[in-house]
C-alpha cells in the first residue's frame, strides 16, 4: 500500500533550478544575521492593509515546502504582541488605517516595518481610488520597501535582511 502510493505519486517538491546556489547562500546569510541580531527566531506579523493578495501568495511561498522559512529562523506569529517585525502589503485602505496604526502601536519596540509590493510604495493600480488613504509610509514609518508586483520570495528575504541591518545593535 504505502510503497505503491510512493511509486504512483509524483514529486511533490521540485528542485529550485538555476538560482539554487544563490538562494542557499542567501538563506545561510539570513540565518546568521538573525542569530547575530536576536539570538533566536525572527517573529513576523503580516498585515494585509488592502492588497490584491498577490503579495500574500508570495509571502506564503516563503513558508511553503521550497523555501520553508521556519527552518532558518523566520517565524510568522498570530499577534503583533509577539512580533519583531511587521510585513505590510498593499495600499492602505480607509478601513485598514486604524487597524494598521493599532497593530503598529501594539508591536513592542524595537520594531521593524517592511512594506512589500509596489502598491505599498506608490499604490499601484489603486492609485487615486476613493477607497485608499495612500502608501504605507503615509500611515506608519517604514524601514524597507520591497518592490515588485509581486516580489518573489527571494526579494522579500533580501528586504527582511536589509531591515535587520537597521535594527539597533545589542550592546
Amino acid at each position: 500500500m504505502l510503497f505503491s502510493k510512493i511509486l504512483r505519486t509524483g514529486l511533490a517538491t521540485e528542485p529550485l533550478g538555476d538560482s539554487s546556489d544563490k538562494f542557499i547562500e542567501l538563506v545561510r546569510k539570513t540565518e546568521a544575521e538573525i542569530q547575530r541580531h536576536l539570538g533566536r527566531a525572527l517573529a513576523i506579523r503580516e498585515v494585509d492593509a488592502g492588497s490584491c493578495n498577490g503579495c500574500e501568495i508570495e509571502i506564503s511561498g516563503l513558508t511553503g515546502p521550497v523555501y520553508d522559512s521556519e527552518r532558518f529562523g523566520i517565524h510568522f506569529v498570530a499577534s503583533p504582541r509577539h512580533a519583531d517585525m511587521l510585513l505590510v502589503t498593499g495600499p492602505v485602505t480607509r478601513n485598514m488605517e486604524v487597524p494598521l496604526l493599532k497593530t503598529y502601536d501594539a508591536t513592542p519596540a524595537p520594531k521593524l516595518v517592511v512594506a512589500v509590493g509596489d502598491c505599498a510604495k506608490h499604490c499601484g493600480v489603486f492609485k487615486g481610488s476613493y477607497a485608499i488613504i495612500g502608501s504605507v509610509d503615509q500611515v506608519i514609518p517604514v524601514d524597507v520597501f520591497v518592490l515588485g508586483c509581486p516580489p518573489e520570495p527571494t526579494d522579500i528575504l533580501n528586504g527582511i535582511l536589509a531591515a535587520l541591518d537597521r535594527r539597533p545593535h545589542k550592546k
Partner: protein
Amino acid sequence: MQSLFFLMLIAYGLGALAAVMGGGTAIGRWLVALGAVVGAGAGLALGATVIITGTSFALSVPELLPLGDGLALRLDALGAFFLVVIGVGAIPAALYGAGYTAAYNDGRASLPLLGAMFNLFLLTMSLVTLADNVLTFLLMWEGMSLASYFLVITESGEERVRNAGLWYIAMTHAGFAALVAMFLLLSGGELTASFVNMRSTSAFLGPLTRDAIFLLALFGFGVKAGIVPLHIWLPMAHPVAPSHVSALMSGVMIKMGIYGLMRVALDLLGGGPVWWGGVVLSLGAVSALLGVLYALMEHDLKRLLAYHSVENIGIILIGIGAGLVFHSYGLMTLAALGFIGGLYHTINHASFKGLLFLGAGSVLHATHTRNMEEMGGLIKKMPWTALFFLIGSAAISALPPLNGFASEWLVFQALLGGFNIPVPEVAVLMPIAVGMLALTSGLAAACFVKAFGITFLALPRSHEAEHAHESSLSMRIGMGILALACVGLGLAPFVVVPAIGGVLNGLGGLPDTRQTFTFNLSVQSPSGFGQMSPTLVMLGLLMLLALVPLAMWILRVNRRLRVSDSWGCGRAGQTARMEYTATSFAEPLRRVFAELYRPTKVLTVEFHPDSKYFVRSIAYKSEIAPLFERLLYDPLLRLVQFAARQVRHLQAGSLHLYLVYVTVILLILLLAARWF
C-alpha cells in the same frame, strides 16, 4: 470561666435588646454589633480557655426548665472547639453587619427584627455546643434553626425569599424530626437523659439500634450540614439572606451538623462498624465533587459560594469518614489524623467562606446585583474588597501557604494511610476518595479563577459596575480580620494541629496525639512519608519574589514603560461585550461533564420580514438540568401533595360532618377506655 460564660450570655442579650429598642438608628446598629462582638469574643475566650487548660466547664440550672434535669450546660473540648469556630466567624461578621445593614434602612426589611434575631441566632448556636442533655440540645438546636429562618427571610417582601425560607424550614424540620427520633432511641425514650448517661449506656444497645441511631443522626445532621442530596436548601437560602448572615450560616451554622455527627457517632456511640465511616467518606466525596461541579455552572456570586459550602462540607466529611474507618480498625493515630484534618478544615472553611461571603456582600452592596455577568472591573473601584476576595479565593483553592492547603493536605495524608487496612473494600474506597478530592481541588481553583476574574478584572459590564464604590470602614475591617485569619491559620499548623489533637484526646478512645504531631515549623504524618511546612513554603515564596528584581538586574531587562491599548485584533473600539464571560469560561467543563449537567440550549432568531439575511434579534438561552430537584424532590413533593389532597376530603366544611367526627371519636375513646 463562669464570668466569661455570663458575659457571653449578657452581651448577646443586650445586643438583642438594643435591636428591639432602636435597631433602626445608627447607634442601634452599632450596639447590635457590639453585643454580638463581645458575646462572640467571650465565647471564643471561653472555648480557648477550655482547650488550653483541658478542664471542662459545667453549669446546671435545674430551675430554668422544670422538666427533668432542667437546663444542663457543659463545655468539653469538642464543644469548645466549635465555640471557637463560632467566635472566628461571628466577630468579623458582626462588625461587617454594622455597616452593611445600613442599606436596609430603606424599608426593605425590619432592622430591629434582623438585629435581635442575629444575636439570638449566635446565642442559641453557642449554647448548642454547651448542651449536656437531650432536652437542652434539642431546644437550642431548634432555636438556632428558627432564628436563622427569620434571618433568611429578612427581605420577606420578595416571593423568591419567602420560597427559599419555606424550603429551608421544611428541610431543617425534617432533619429535626430525625434528631428527636435518634435521641429517643439513644436515651431509651427519655428526652431528659444527660450525655454522660448515654455515653455509658450506648455500649449496651443492640447493633441494629446503634445502626439506626447512626443513620438517623447522619440524616438529621446531614440536612443541617448540607450533604448531597440533602443540600438543596443551601443554594436557595444562603444567597437571599443578608451577606453577613450568609457568612455565618455558610461558615459556621452548617458546621453544627459536623459537631452533632462527631458528638453522636464518635463521642456518645463511641465509634461503630467500618461501614459507618465508609458511608460518611463516600457521601463526603460525592458532596465535594458535585458541590464544586454545580458551583462551576453558577453565575450568581452568592449561589456559587453556597455550592462551594457543599463542596467544603464534603471535604470535612472525607476527613471525618476516614477517621471513622481507621477508628473501627483500631488504627487510632491515623484516625486522629483524619479527624484533625476534618476539624482543621472546619475552622479554615469558617474563615475563608466567611471572608468570601462578606466580599460578595460588598460587591452586591456596590453593584446591586449578584449576577457575575454584569460585573467586571471592580478591582479599580474597590481595591480592598478585591484584595480580600483574592486572599479568600486563594485559600479556598488550597494554594499554599494559605489555610485551605494545610487542612486539605492533612486530609490527603489520612486517606493515603488507607493502605494500612488490608481489606479490598477499604483499599478501593480510599484511593477513589483521593482521586475525587484531587479533582475537587482542581475544579475549585478553576471556579475561583472564574469568580475573581469575571467579577473584579477587565472592563465593567454594566452601568452599576462602572459606578461601584468601595465598602464602608466597618465592612473592610470585618473582611480584614478574616483575611488575617486565613493567613494565620495557614502559617501556623504547628500550633493548630496539636491544639485539635488535644481536643480529640480521649474522645471515643482516641489517643493523645499532641506528642505525635509536635512540629517545629512543620507537620509530619505518622506513617512518616509526608512532611509539610507552610511556614517554610511562605519563606520560600518570599525569597522567590525577591529573586525577580535580582534576575531582572542580572539580565539587564529594559524596564522603560510604554502604555498602549490592550490588543484587540485591531478593532476600532473595544467594549465590555467582547470580554470573556462566566458562561464562556465554564463552557469547556460543561461539555466535559455533559452527562451530569444535561445542558439544554434554545436559540431563537428573529428575521427581518423581507429577507432572512437581516436579523432583528437573537436570543440564546442555555441551562443545566437540576438533577436532584427533578429526580428526588419533585416526586417527594408530589407524594406529599397527594397525601394532603386525600386528607382534605375529611375537612369538607360541613358542621354536621364535624359533629359526626366528634361523636365517633368520643365513642371510640369511651370504648377504648372501657376495654383497656
